[in-house]
């Protein structure tokens, strides 16, 4: 965990130091490429796994349940925060 946080913090320091260099802002495209490569690797490791490939429907059902509940939970919590702290007299005060 600390390696990941350390690497991210080191990157942030480098990014802040060179924020005026225009080329550094192209890092977003690079991130997209790395993520695509990472997902390709992940897909590859899943594809080689016969057990997972044979039970994709089963995994999709579980994933949909966790995703649905996570979104519902965060939306309900956001509604409570909006009602108690942001909404005054029906007006939105961000």
């Amino acid at each position, binding site marked *: 965990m600390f390696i990941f946080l350390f690497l991210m913090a080191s990157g942030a320091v480098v990014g802040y130091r060179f*924020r005026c260099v225009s080329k550094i802002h192209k890092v977003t495209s690079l991130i997209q490429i790395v993520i695509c490569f990472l997902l390709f690797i992940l*897909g590859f490791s899943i594809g080689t796994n016969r057990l997972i490939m044979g039970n994709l429907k089963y995994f999709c059902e*579980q*994933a949909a349940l966790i995703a649905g509940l996570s979104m*519902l939970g*965060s939306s309900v919590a*956001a509604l409570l925060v909006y009602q108690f702290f942001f909404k005054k007299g029906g007006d939105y005060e961000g």
Partner: protein
Amino acid sequence: MKGSLAILLFFLLGCTCGVYYNVDFDIHELSVYVLYVLMILLGINLGCNQDLKGFAKSINLKVLLVPIATVSGTFLFSAVAGFILSRWSIFDCMAVGSGFAYYSVSSVLITQLKAPSLGMQLATELGTIALLANIFREMAALIGAPLIYRFFGRLAPISAAGIGSADILLASISKYSGKEAIPIAVMHGILINISVPFFVSLFCKM
């Protein structure tokens, strides 16, 4: 949306290649090194943000309540999933939920971190569920933004988006929650982004 589809396409391409081909090196070790590169790049992207100081100044307790709501609501309801899905523990489900739509990082992290305790097979299964769950969350937040706004208010599209509130979902948040919500959405996305490796690691260790 195009980015999400490209990622999904690469994932499916990887799956297809994996079904037909085999490699003689450790693919998981390779994914860890690529993840290290990704972490550095994400840090650079965060650091070179020109408005970083302005955003830092705009931090106040009220704005911080939105990511707190996102985190607490997600954890609470993910824990409920732990009771429904008997195969996984509550903390496993919370680790999946704590991806906050950050499917790439969370799925690889979960696979790597759960391998010592669950074994490679179960860890890969949980990583797959994390990947699918977080892709579903981003897609649903993108497509369902008007409904989420209608039923749960102006801040809900931000919370439902998870880390996507700072980039991919910012346009739809601006459309439904108003332009005033943009600084909140960006700050929310940055804070959730930073929290993902921490919370995923935390729940994987529990």
